[in-house]
């Protein structure tokens, strides 16, 4: 527990010193949203809700991939070796998942705010939509952290990251989009129960697999 807290503290300090992910990614999400806004030729009020929703999640997905792919490459190999001698692999992966989840929640909520600001806000049930964003951020972060760990071991990391992560993240993305669509249409919340359960189950599978498999990855 203590170890976990220290490791998360380390991630935050590192982030604070470089301010790469937070500022860079905020700018990334804002400019992507703006590009979409301009590409639709400012007729965003004619955008149908389905397109609105899909576009938002694609932006979030790409932001997540580029924000998280640096998780393992930002620090030099020597430093990683140093952590290897100090901390348990489970502590490392768990701290990275938690930190990335937090980062993704901040990024996607900010992204949602800006997106709704320029593209209009057709969401019927806002608290539910926000809940979806939080669940999705946690899910994306945990899947992508593991994949980033795998990709960082190989050369041409960036290409590999997208090849490996897109297929693996699609089940989650589909569930998220469905849940988001329900919230968008303002459907009764009981309708979405099943999706939330499946989403949580997928999260649980990914996190437990990461905990089991990461020690093998960390060894090499």
């Amino acid at each position, binding site marked *: 527990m203590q170890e976990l807290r220290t490791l998360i503290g380390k991630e935050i300090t590192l982030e604070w010193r470089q301010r790469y992910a937070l500022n860079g990614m905020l700018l990334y999400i804002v400019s992507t949203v703006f590009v979409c806004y301009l590409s639709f030729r400012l007729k965003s009020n004619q955008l149908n809700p389905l397109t609105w929703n899909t576009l938002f999640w694609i932006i979030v997905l790409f932001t997540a991939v580029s924000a998280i792919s640096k998780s393992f490459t930002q620090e030099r190999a020597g430093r990683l070796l140093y952590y290897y001698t100090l901390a348990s692999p489970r502590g490392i992966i768990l701290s990275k998942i938690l930190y990335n989840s937090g980062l993704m929640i901040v990024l996607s909520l900010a992204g949602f705010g800006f997106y709704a600001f320029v593209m209009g806000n057709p969401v019927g049930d806002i608290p539910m939509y926000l809940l979806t964003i939080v669940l999705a951020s946690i899910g994306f972060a945990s899947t992508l952290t593991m994949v980033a760990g795998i990709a960082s071991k*190989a050369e041409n990391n960036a290409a590999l990251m997208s090849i490996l992560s897109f297929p693996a993240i699609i089940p989650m993305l589909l569930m998220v989009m469905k849940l988001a669509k329900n919230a968008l249409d303002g459907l009764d919340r009981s309708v979405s129960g099943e999706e939330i359960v499946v989403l949580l189950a997928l999260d649980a599978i990914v996190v437990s697999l990461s905990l089991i498999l990461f020690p093998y990855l960390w060894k090499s």
Partner: protein
Amino acid sequence: MKNNWWKVLAVVLLTYGFYFGLMGEVPRRNILNESIRNVYFHVSLWFATTLFLLTSAIYSIRYLRSNNLTHDIKAVEFTNVALLFGALGCATGSLWARVTWGDWWPNDPKLNSVAISMLMYFAYTVLRSSLEDEQKKARISAVYNIFAFAVFIPLIYILPRMTDSLHPGNGGNPAFGEYDMDNQMRRVFYPIIIGWMLLGTWIATLRIRVRALTLND
């Protein structure tokens, strides 16, 4: 010969399955008509593919436990066979979809899931080729393989059942066996499943032996 009886069995079962699959009596159903014969090929190919992917995942787990490179070779070759059978399963399914649903690749959740999982396993081969060191390659791709299998099962067998799908047994449709198959068909269907599984294992073992020879050099 003693250890090769199952290869003979594979040939016998597949010959039997192909002959009776194409020539045997089948029940007449609306829309399906003669294309119901495809259940012998398309469905059984996918059963075999799932079995090979499971075998591959098991060998990956065994590799991580033992660091024995032969387990890694087995995991790779079973994945390759699964990719081959999966491609055949897609091809037969596509033909069937053209005849019954009117489109080569209809927008159906199960088809999309299959496409995604094929991408995932192709990514596995790309991942392998981008790593140099044998042990490192084996370890990392084993980790990814287990991860991919854990995504494959919900993708193919759970998620399509939750949405509307054209496939039998999904989205509230009755499973195929409940109405459309009769006992006559089952007598062909089950042997051909076993036949494909044996044939795939045979292909995999041959390739594993070739790889093991180059490994020892």
